[in-house]
């Protein structure tokens, strides 16, 4: 009875956090939105106006459908309501670049509502944690500034997709592997970018689910295989039936886009490019004649041509192999010792590898590992410190998404608020009880002997303290931001306009690289 009551209490608490987040999401509806809003609106139109057989062929707009079928079905589902709200939203031709408030409100609110799924995922992931820790995870995940920036300002449906991912992880962590595998397969049919974690899932499920002798293992393997095949059949079946599977695949993997996005995601390739530039610069200084590259990274447009001067060209295959290489220690570890407790970390690690070494990575993809890591951030002090650094860096790396002045205070306040919140949360968690009791003792003595000791404050502060390296690194974020926003335009004017963004990429890449190494060591150490 009491347990039941506390559970409903805690649901109320989660709903409360969610409600507060929702009010903020509602308030930012009139803010800037990227072309993704039009992209998704056009997808609503495609799926609503055209028969399924033409979805992946339509070229009415340059924003062709390039997500897997489940997402297209999801858009089809939403388009039913969109049609009720305003038929023009889903009109294939008249709807192009339709900017009426009905369209914007409908799409924004659909993101807000689909976030409910994310909340459910978070709830399931945290249902076994003690109440204080659970509270903290909710604050980290539900009030994540990254999600607000990407989904509710920039516009995308990441929250909804993370819902599937977190649900899948929660089932795996509980040992219900079949359900976890099923949900992950569904997720892959929503957005194929999540496939980076597929090797981890594969190895984990093979070793954890399909164990117990040859016969039982094989039986389970076939059950799991059947489930996954069924999911994929449900997604791609209709397109196979129409004989369009090649077209669907071609749309989903546009490798012509180049290694880096216009704004470089803070990953390994940033260092690679910088190294190339550095060597080229040195060589020209020493009098070598260096041909200028066919495509320039700083120009923003990145095509198929090699942008590198000295270093070898990077192909999608190179990145693929690098990701697998980076993943391999984690895969081996999972093979040797598949544990439900470590699955969250392994999945997050896989996404980190994909982010660092992947092809044409978006800065938004850093959320793929920051959100799952929130669940394990409360496990130990080291985790908390790491997460504190990582979440700040990842949110900061999203800043260039919102480049207009109007949203500037919003993104800064979101980040500041988040930093303060998690600082408070972690302090509260790690100073609890222990510090309290010791200070009580100390103060008792001090008062009895009339000795004024400042031990109390010292002990309370002793809970959650960052090292000087982390502190100065985070302070550097401030310096980079002040330089990019104020000093650079003031001192250099319009010269080198790419430098502020480049600085953000390089600086954040350092943090993410650190996080990658740290995550790897944690996975290796923990057993």
């Amino acid at each position, binding site marked *: 009875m009491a347990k039941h009551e506390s559970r409903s209490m805690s649901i109320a608490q989660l709903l409360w956090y969610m409600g507060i987040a929702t009010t903020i999401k*509602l308030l930012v509806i*009139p803010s800037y939105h990227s072309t993704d809003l039009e992209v998704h609106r056009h997808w609503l139109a495609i799926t609503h106006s055209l028969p399924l057989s033409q979805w992946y062929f339509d070229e009415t707009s340059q924003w062709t459908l390039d997500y897997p079928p489940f997402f297209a079905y999801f858009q089809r589902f939403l388009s039913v309501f969109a049609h009720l709200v305003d038929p023009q939203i889903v009109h294939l031709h008249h709807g192009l670049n339709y900017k009426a408030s009905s369209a914007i409100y409908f799409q924004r609110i659909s993101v807000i509502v689909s976030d409910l799924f994310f909340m459910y995922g978070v709830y399931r992931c945290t249902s076994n944690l003690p109440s204080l820790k659970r509270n903290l995870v909710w604050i980290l995940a539900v009030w994540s500034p990254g999600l607000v920036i990407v989904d509710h300002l920039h516009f995308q449906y990441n929250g909804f997709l993370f819902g599937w991912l977190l649900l899948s992880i929660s089932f795996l962590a509980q040992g219900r592997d079949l359900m976890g595998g099923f949900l992950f397969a569904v997720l892959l049919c929503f957005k194929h970018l999540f496939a980076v974690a597929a090797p981890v899932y594969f190895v984990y499920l093979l070793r954890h689910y399909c164990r117990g002798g040859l016969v039982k293992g094989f039986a389970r393997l076939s059950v799991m295989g059947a489930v996954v095949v069924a999911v994929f059949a449900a997604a791609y079946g209709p397109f196979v039936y129409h004989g369009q599977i090649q077209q669907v695949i071609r749309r989903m993997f546009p490798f012509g886009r180049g290694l880096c996005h216009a704004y470089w995601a803070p990953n390994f390739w940033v260092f690679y490019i910088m190294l190339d530039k550095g060597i080229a610069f040195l060589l020209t200084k020493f009098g070598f004649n260096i041909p200028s590259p066919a495509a320039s990274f700083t120009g923003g447009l990145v095509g198929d041509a090699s942008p590198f001067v000295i270093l070898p060209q990077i192909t999608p295959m190179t990145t693929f192999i690098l990701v697998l290489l980076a993943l391999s220690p984690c895969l081996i570890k999972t093979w040797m010792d598949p544990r439900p407790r470590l699955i969250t970390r392994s999945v997050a690690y896989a996404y980190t590898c994909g982010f660092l070494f992947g092809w044409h990575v978006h800065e938004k993809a850093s959320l793929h590992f920051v959100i799952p890591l929130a669940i394990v951030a409360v496990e130990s002090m080291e985790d908390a410190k790491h997460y504190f650094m990582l979440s700040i860096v990842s949110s900061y790396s999203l800043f260039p998404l919102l480049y207009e002045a*109007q949203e500037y205070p*919003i993104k800064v306040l979101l980040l500041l608020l988040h930093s303060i919140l998690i600082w408070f949360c972690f302090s509260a968690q790690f100073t609890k009880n222990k510090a*309290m009791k010791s200070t009580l003792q100390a103060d008792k003595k001090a008062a009895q002997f009339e000795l004024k000791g400042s031990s109390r404050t010292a002990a309370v502060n002793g809970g959650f303290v960052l090292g000087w390296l982390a502190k100065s690194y985070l302070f550097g974020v401030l310096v980079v931001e002040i330089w990019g926003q104020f000093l650079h335009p003031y001192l250099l004017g319009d010269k080198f306009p790419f430098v502020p963004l480049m600085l953000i990429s390089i600086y954040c890449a350092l943090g993410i690289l650190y996080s990658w190494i740290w995550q790897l060591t944690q996975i290796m150490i923990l057993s």
Partner: protein
Amino acid sequence: MKKKRGMEKVKRLEDMVNAENDDSEGDPWWWLVQKGIKHSFLCISLFALLVRVAVGLHPYSGAKTPPKYGDYEAQRHWMEITLNLPAKDWYRNSSVNNLSYWGLDYPPLTAYQSYIHGVFLKTFDPDSVALFTSRGHESYLGKLLMRWTVLFSDVLIFFPAVLYFVFVYRAMQSGRGRKSDVAWHIAIILLNPCLILIDHGHFQYNCISLGFTMAAVAASLSQRDPVASVLYCLALNHKQMSAYFAPAFFSYLLGKCLRHKNPLLEVSKLGLMVIGTFAIVWWPYLHSKDAAFSVLSRLAPFERGIYEDYVANFWCTTSVLVKWKKVFTTQSLRIFSLAATVLTCLPSMVQQVLAPSSKGFLYGLLNSSLSFYLFSFQVHEKSILLPLLPLSLLALEEPRSLLWLTHFAMFSMFPLLQRDKLVLAYMALYALFVLLYFAPGGPGGRCNSSKTLDHKQKAKKGTKFVSSVAFHPLVMGFLCLCSLILHVIYLTMRPPKKYPFLFEAVIMLLCFSQFIIFTFYFNSKQWMLLKHLTSKDKQKKLI
């Protein structure tokens, strides 16, 4: 002696630690409050700032509606005037300052504030404050800069005032009560939806005058009466509407002075402060009688009617029965309204002169501002912000009245905000307020459990009837339903041609009925305080 003090300290510490441990067990807000009030204030104020910035994304009053636009244009125009003309010409009609187009009609402090903001605008967007040519100026950057001026004012004046008040209020209760309640109180004051909507949505600078008023309240509660009178004069000199609080300040400060050994000295000290502040603020207009009077005449809009639009006050509501504007001249209406206001203020003033007390003072502020709102001349819908301020200061005393009155205050401004296209912000902020009010483990959620309710009502027998009727679940539910339906009707339906303002009138009637009930309720609450004053308390007051 020393040892005794030491033991006392130990006991206090033990209590504190026990209390904190208790908190951390059941309190979901432990992480927020464990570092102290200042830290939780920092966190909450960042959130409050975020909400304000987000509301600033929405349209302002009179956007894209030439020729007169709205309050946004008025404020921008004042910046233009103060920036480009010498101070003596600010309030004077001239070839360069057409007073019929949003002439400056607030006291000089507003003009100075406009000047400072004008300088800010000029550095980044000179076009937006250029003389003449900037009329009706609307641009992306202009809107942004204007929004930021309100944010700066809020952060520089309102937020520190809240912190000051919260500290004083906590000291007043000698540190009793849960820390999370303090955080709740901060959030409730900072995230008052009406204030945010009017300042950051509709566009005004109420945060400045209300911030000064709140600081003045805090100063007088902490016995710094001279500081309080200076701060209150600043509020008064920013918006003449702050006079709504004048009776309360006057009676409370007078009551306190009378209890001093040398009342005359105290009174003259405060008087000197008031005159000094006024002299400094009004300095550019004191060189001649004409100049001062021309400013004064701008401040008192007696040529306007007794009410405008559909404000939920006595005159406007009763005009359904009595056509005040037709039956009486403006002159006599002015006298009526003055008499009504003074009469309704009087009980609470008398109470404060007789027995000035901290709590009584807060109730006094509430009562006098409600009287002004209901009965004074030329009241605007936005004036409901003034009673809401002392009510939010009393949030821990009167949580449910706060919820209820905020609901109707919001509702009474709904037609105005709907015209400004702020419905989305209205709904979001309303939801935010309700969520904050019912924060898990917060005072708002607690007082709904019947146990504490009974307890509270026993303590205040006299007000039992009013509160039992007003807060009866059935009555509350019915009125909530009514207002919900009215919201929907107002948004979706067109009124019959014969009565184009039918819905506004119904909204006004509903809100007025609640405001008048609460005026009685708060007045009786204030008088009840007298009974609770023991002789010991009275002795304290003598010091």
